[in-house]
């Protein structure tokens, strides 16, 4: 595994003319290795996108160190960007009146690929992402999911060493999100380091190796995703019963969806829940613990607020 990105104690500010400077990052850090998928989490305004912009060399840090593939992105933008694939704020910008293939030709040329190389890569990627039938359609005819897939194609067209995805599954349905995640996993398995910033924490939980949590511009957690769940995740379990269930008298605090119940352990609620099940004469069909990254995230976020 090679170290791809190191961000160390970085401070960054937006300084528009005629307005007060806004400090967006205050001692933010992260590191990314090849084959690794890093989940970047934080509430709105925590500094996720700013951190990504710093890695992309789109802004300069006031203090601290940003190192991408051994270079400072602000001083070596072209060299760094040649090895990065990016989706910012959901999707790439497309001229809607063009065809997907035209856009690929333009972006590929920007990465120094010759038309013949772009065509070869495009053949492969359009097929792989299931967009082959729509390759020569105008972007106006693309659905949101198709546009996001096309954004991913643009991001990996030049076979980058690092892939940075800012809210890549925003507005995608469950099926397409899952498909999208599989593709990202495949890309990481080929050796690429991936950073995913998303609010849909549980959707990407199974995918990530490492989690970084930002709060008010500061890194408050950086470690293995499982250790985050172990340390901060609210222990919960999912219960299924063989019988048909009447939930009209279900105790408060228990969630019911898709024929199963989600209950917190070690609480008064779980005791009430099992008493209720006994009263109703329900026969247990299955019980499994839930790995809930989102509740772990909320817990660490709230706890640190009290520190």
């Amino acid at each position, binding site marked *: 595994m090679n170290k791809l990105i190191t961000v160390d104690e970085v401070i*960054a*500010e*937006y*300084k*528009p*003319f005629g307005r007060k400077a806004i400090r*967006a990052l205050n001692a933010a850090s992260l590191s990314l290795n090849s084959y690794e998928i890093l989940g970047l989490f934080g509430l709105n305004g925590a500094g996720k*996108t*700013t951190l990504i*912009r710093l890695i*992309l*060399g*789109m*802004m*300069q840090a006031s203090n601290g160190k940003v190192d991408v593939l051994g270079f400072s992105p*602000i001083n070596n*933008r*072209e*060299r*760094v*960007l*040649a090895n990065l694939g*990016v989706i*910012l*704020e959901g999707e*790439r*910008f497309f*001229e809607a*009146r*063009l*065809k997907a293939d*035209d856009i690929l*030709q*333009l*972006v*590929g*040329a*920007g*990465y*120094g690929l*010759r*038309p013949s190389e772009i065509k070869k890569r495009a053949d492969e990627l359009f097929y792989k992402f299931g967009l082959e039938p729509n390759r020569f359609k*105008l972007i106006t005819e693309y659905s949101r999911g198709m546009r996001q897939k096309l954004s991913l194609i643009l991001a990996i067209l030049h076979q980058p060493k690092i892939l940075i995805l800012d809210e890549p599954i925003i507005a995608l349905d469950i099926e397409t999100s899952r498909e999208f995640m599989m593709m990202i996993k495949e890309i990481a398995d080929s050796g690429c380091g991936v950073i995913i910033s998303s609010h849909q924490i549980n959707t990407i939980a199974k995918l990530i190796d490492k989690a970084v949590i930002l709060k008010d511009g500061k890194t408050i957690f950086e470690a293995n995703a499982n250790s985050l769940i172990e340390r901060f995740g609210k222990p919960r379990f999912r219960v299924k019963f063989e019988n048909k269930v009447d939930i009209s008298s279900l105790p408060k605090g228990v969630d019911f969806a898709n024929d199963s119940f989600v209950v917190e352990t070690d609480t008064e609620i779980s005791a009430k829940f099992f008493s209720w099940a006994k009263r109703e004469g329900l026969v247990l069909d299955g019980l499994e613990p839930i790995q809930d990254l989102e509740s772990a995230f909320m817990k660490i976020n709230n706890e640190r607020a009290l520190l």
Partner: protein
Amino acid sequence: MKYFWIAWARFKNALYLEYRYPLQALMNAIGFVLFIYLLSIGANFNNPNISKSANIISVLTGLIAAFGLSHPLTTLGKSKFEIQEIYLQPISRIKYILASSTFFFLQIILTFIVYTYIIALFLNAEIQIPSQFLFLSIAVYLSSLGLGLVLVSFRIVFQRMGALINFISLIFIGSAVAANPTILRFIANYSAFARALLYIQTGELSLPWLWGLTFISLIIGIISFAYSEKLMFKRALLALD
């Protein structure tokens, strides 16, 4: 070579847009010919001592200057997302703008030559496109490209620039229609565009001055843009809209 392929892909896409929306392209062409026609009538009215042909070519020179001026902004993009997309690619923006301007210039100059003949037909003017005009138009285009780079520098630093480019374009076109040799002789010391107009109207030509002014304008534009980019990165202005 990399910039040649980017410029080519961009140019090809611009042509695709014309081809895919033929009605829009036709309406634009008709509107544009009418526009140049009316301006040429105005120029003939203002400068009756100058030949119709020279007046038509003056108008076209004004339009070439206006196109050169707006090219950097059009290439870089108007919205935050368009500009951001350029900055996500491993390219030098200056080289990108200059490379794409080559194909764009060829497109407009060829279009204008066709339009000139159409308008000359309407105005019953004997038109000749001297090779020297083509040569001059390169200087005019490059010098206004330099000014365009200065203006786009304002855009990336201050995010807003209102209708400044439109106003300056109108000044270029207005000068082509209304300026007489006396005024042009005065401005020609500072502007390659005025020097080109002076040549078209009177035949007075000083090539070292013309190219000197062109390069100064272009270099000021490049320096201004490079400095503004540094400022933009330092103050994190790219993310702002």
